[in-house]
């Protein structure tokens, strides 16, 4: 639909001390997040990325020139050295692996190759501390969520839903399809930073014998 095709960025209202920068797509929003982080503007206290937006927490109104620039600038791609790459070793032993592959008319081997054969990038975090929504940098699959969510998904479950992938940092209810598991710790309040994955981080999944 026409209104879904955002051709330029828009700076949307969000109450008294925030604005929402709606970008063209995920790549554009990641470029803008990097550009804004380099600017270090004192008016911007924090940035919370969404799937194609940046929520800007403000300590003072955005100056008009900065607001204009945020709409019009064509920022450079995020430099490779600015994006951390994390390798996550996965046992592809998830309870839904065979059924998801079936539904996509793929073999489980093909589904695993889809998962390990490309880098993923953290678009944004949500749902739980350290839970990153990973977007594919290569081909995307559309995987339906489970019609009935599980009441308990174990920590370290590697899952897919829609075109996203994710790793559950802690045990929680969850509706995503489970394709594997990992021993990697995704969230640790005593670590700095506490989350292994943050927006912009690139993830390479690596297959362990299951």
């Amino acid at each position, binding site marked *: 639909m026409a209104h879904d095709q955002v051709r330029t960025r828009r700076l949307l209202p969000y109450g008294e001390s925030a604005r929402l920068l709606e970008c063209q797509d995920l790549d554009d929003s990641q470029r803008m997040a990097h550009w804004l982080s380099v600017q270090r503007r004192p008016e911007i206290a924090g940035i919370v990325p*969404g*799937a194609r937006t940046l*929520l800007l927490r403000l300590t003072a109104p955005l100056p008009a020139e900065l607001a204009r620039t945020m709409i019009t600038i064509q920022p450079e791609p995020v430099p490779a050295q600015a994006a951390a790459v994390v390798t996550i070793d996965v046992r592809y032993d998830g309870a839904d692996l065979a059924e998801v592959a079936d539904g996509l008319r793929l073999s489980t081997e093909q589904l695993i190759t889809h998962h390990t054969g490309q880098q993923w990038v953290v678009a944004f975090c949500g749902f739980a501390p350290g839970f990153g929504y990973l977007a594919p940098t290569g081909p995307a699959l559309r995987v339906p969520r489970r019609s009935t969510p599980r009441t308990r998904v174990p920590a370290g479950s590697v899952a897919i839903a829609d075109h996203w992938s994710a790793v559950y940092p802690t045990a929680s209810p969850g509706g995503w399809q489970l394709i594997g598991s990992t021993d990697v710790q995704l969230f640790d309040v005593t670590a700095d930073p506490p989350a292994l994955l943050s*927006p912009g981080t690139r993830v390479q999944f690596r297959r362990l014998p299951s």
Partner: protein
Amino acid sequence: MIIVERSGPLAVIEDLGRPGYADLGVSPSGAADRGSLRAANRLVGNPEDAAAIEILLGGLSITAQESAWIAVAGAPTDLLINDRADASHHPVYLRAGDRMEVLAPRTGLRSYLAVRGGIDVPAVLGSRSADLLAGLGPAPLRPGDRLPVGRSTLPQPGIDVLPLPAAEEPLRVTLLPGPRTDWFTEAALNSLGSQLWRVGSDLDRTGVRLDGEPLERRITDELPSEGLIRGAVQVPPSGLPIIFGSNHPVTGGYPVVGVVPDADCDRVAQLRPGDGLRFSWAAR
């Protein structure tokens, strides 16, 4: 040390929260009614951001192991100190061994019990706040819990008593434009700002659900997840709005139609199920 004898429906330790980790999926959490937390702290000469006990509908009973200044602010309530009646909104001196009970508030939902020196449980990511969504920070209080009290460095204030918050029925709150105001029909936006909403029964620190006439959307697309803040008024597919509280999720996939300003969020945090609420658009 403060010893918890009874914890009531829900008593949690809260300060002003842990902002700054939302991009990692961590809710800011913190006191649902920030003004009342600050007030309780001021009454005992604490920094305004010291950790205190957020008490839902009273029912908390404690014993002071050492003498302590305490104060209760927020939802106005009566106190029992060794069975002697006292009141909220002024500093109270407890001697070692005194037992104090916070009764159910006459109006409002959440009272804040501050202790001079602050509740000194370990901070997690810079805050002593319980985050009930993620299970971060101190767990809800249970009988037998022993709460360490910090050392106070500020002078004891000369405040005798704070004015009680005025109860308003229905509560009128301001609504500022949100990022997806234009996803709703003109009729829905007018209805949002004119109808009498009722607070639903399943409210918590995450948010307050409102019952009323559902709001109709103009744009019915799925919304890719985007950032949320305290006070965001989100409209899920039911068409019935949710006002997010301090322990809100950091991102969400339903449109935010408007935003309640901070000062009004404190008052929303005091609404009980069944209470009335009217929004008035500040501008649109």
